[in-house]
């Protein structure tokens, strides 16, 4: 929790009103929520359960507890993410918007110079090109074939190396010579990792190799759109420092640091869009 003015781009802070709005980003792995109200913001995160609705209800309960606000203080809710399709907010005004639009608006409000976003989530990865004037999506590329280039791939790799997801990124940063991982298919990569381990390759080098292989895939997505700075890394994997380093190495450009944990960028964008899509965009474009 904190003050919106501490995380939002100074040029855009006043575009956010005082009323209460909630953005819920129900991803395939984790559910994220942001409540904005009276110049403050509150965040919550929880693993996504079997159904999206209980996850959303749980997040809202936690937000209300943390913020001291009540449902009656909330003017509108936006649902986004993988689980958005099955959300029901009862009588509270609500809208459902894709995570692509929400990440674009969220990252724009966090840094109005954002023009390219890499969003790696649990089950997909996206490259998004953003109009810096208003945060609207200009173009996007999304993998939708398999777990390649996604958090699921990293999760499986961590499991095979017997370390946690959190440690996978840290381990990668210790690498002396990243291993060459050619397979992006989780199934084939598994045998490749086992072979590397059998050869005695260090865990750090393998971890770095995994992240670089994923970053190469991201690079190909970005190339389709064209890379325009500033580049922001968002989504569930954005806390992985090894992944961030690999993206920066492979793309040859630094990612812009945000003042809010970028895992909440989509939920923040959803909360902002809950103000009214048109209003949010019109306000933003005025800046």
């Amino acid at each position, binding site marked *: 929790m904190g003050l919106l003015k501490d995380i939002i781009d100074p040029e855009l802070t006043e575009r956010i009103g005082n009323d209460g709005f909630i953005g819920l980003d129900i991803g395939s792995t984790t559910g994220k929520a942001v409540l904005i109200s009276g110049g403050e913001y509150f965040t919550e995160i929880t693993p996504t359960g079997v159904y999206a609705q*209980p996850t959303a209800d749980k*997040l809202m*309960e936690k937000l209300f507890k943390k913020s001291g606000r009540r449902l009656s203080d909330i003017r509108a809710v936006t649902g986004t993410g993988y689980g958005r399709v099955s959300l029901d907010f009862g009588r509270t005004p609500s809208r459902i918007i894709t995570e692509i639009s929400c990440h674009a608006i969220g990252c724009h409000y966090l840094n109005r110079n954002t023009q390219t976003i890499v969003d790696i989530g649990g089950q997909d990865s996206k490259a998004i090109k953003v109009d810096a004037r208003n945060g609207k999506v200009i173009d996007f590329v*999304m993998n939708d074939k398999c777990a390649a280039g996604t958090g699921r791939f990293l999760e499986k790799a961590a499991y095979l190396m017997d370390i946690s997801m959190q440690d996978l990124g840290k381990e990668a940063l210790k690498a002396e010579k990243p291993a060459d991982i050619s397979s992006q298919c989780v199934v084939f990569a598994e045998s490749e990792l086992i072979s590397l381990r059998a050869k005695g390759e260090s865990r750090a080098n393998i971890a770095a190799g995994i992240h670089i292989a994923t970053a190469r895939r991201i690079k190909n997505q970005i190339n389709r759109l064209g890379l325009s700075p500033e580049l922001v890394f968002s989504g569930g994997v954005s806390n992985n420092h090894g992944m961030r380093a690999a993206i920066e190495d492979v793309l040859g450009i630094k990612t812009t640091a945000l003042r809010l944990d970028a895992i909440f960028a989509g939920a923040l964008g959803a909360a902002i869009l809950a103000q009214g899509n048109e209003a949010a965009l019109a306000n933003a474009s005025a800046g």
Partner: protein
Amino acid sequence: MAETKEKKYIPPVDFGRQTQIEHIEYSRDVVHRYSPSIRRLFNLGLTYVEDVEKQVRDEGKRALWCGPPWAMPLVYAADYLPLEYGELARLSDVDAISIAENHFQMPAEVCSMVKATVGELYKRRNSGIDKIFSMGNTCEPFNQAWEVLKDEGYDIYNGEIVFRAPGVDGERYEKILRFFLKEIESFYCWMTGARDVNKEKLFIELQRRNRIMTKIKTIMELRVPHPFYVRSLAVMYLLNGLNNYLGKPDEFEDVLDGLIDELLARGDSSEDRDRVIPLVWSGGSGQEFGVYEAVDEANGALLGFVAIAPYDKLFNLEIDPVESLARWQLDSRGAGASVYMRRALEEKIDEIGAKGLIQYGFIGCSQHGVAREMFRDYFHQKGIPSINIEGTFQVGPPSGQVLTRINAFIEMLA
């Protein structure tokens, strides 16, 4: 809702529309409940294959499985009922692809449309309809499919396709035309045993086809001022019916007349026009009907629909009917070079003032995948956003990612 603690969550009983038939029924009974003509259209689609099979079984009529749109007037002229195998695959069940992959050992990466077709035709191998006409020489998976189906007792005519490269004219063009005329006669002979095409009947069928194309063109033009009256799935069925009349030419034409009347009777739709996002759809029409619902729910409207078979190119009734048939195909957007299709897309985008282009193809379809990428680059350079969707003929709702892409694309255009 969130403030109720310890609320036991009861998952929804209605898990949504899973099968294609459920989508059609929903579109017929809920989305288009106001339109008697569209409800009739869906009923024709739902009963198309079974009714033709019944007519063959009970009334001694002749039918064949058929693919190429240009051939349908000829099939009707030969007193056959055309059963378009694409429609069969579109309403296939979960067993069809399993049969293709497990019984026929077709690899998983083979186009799902081919596999659904093979599976369904295998299940119908004793239906009494054993003739298949295809011009599948450009699609290797279909060629393989026909080979395996021969062993199941099917009599298959796999015709030679004709291509007209850009710039081909004069004697070269006439030579290709003569070759194609022979192919048409040969196909007719295979169907009927007669060497000469019944030109009187063919002429009548070409007249009918022109009439039906004109009516569909009228409907598509009337949709521009009334963009939400005929929603996406119904448009898809209209255009699929253009090829085969869903086995009932008179009834299909009657539906078109009724729909024109309904559209003409519409009041002011300016509110709809203000919020619509006009889109052009090209490529296959697929089986994942949830994609069409996603377009509708996002205020998109497929006001332009560019498929291989056009509704705005009439047969020339002033020349020999067989030649007219051949020239229609040879001069069409489906005559080989992708530039023809690109031009058709450009015209349609301009005509309806489209904000974006959705290109739909099937996973594993090597035939059209490259062209779609070329079109994407071309239209992006012209400032027209497009999205390439890869779907399947697998039964079931579209994946979350496909819906996300469609939704995000339309949000982007809004």
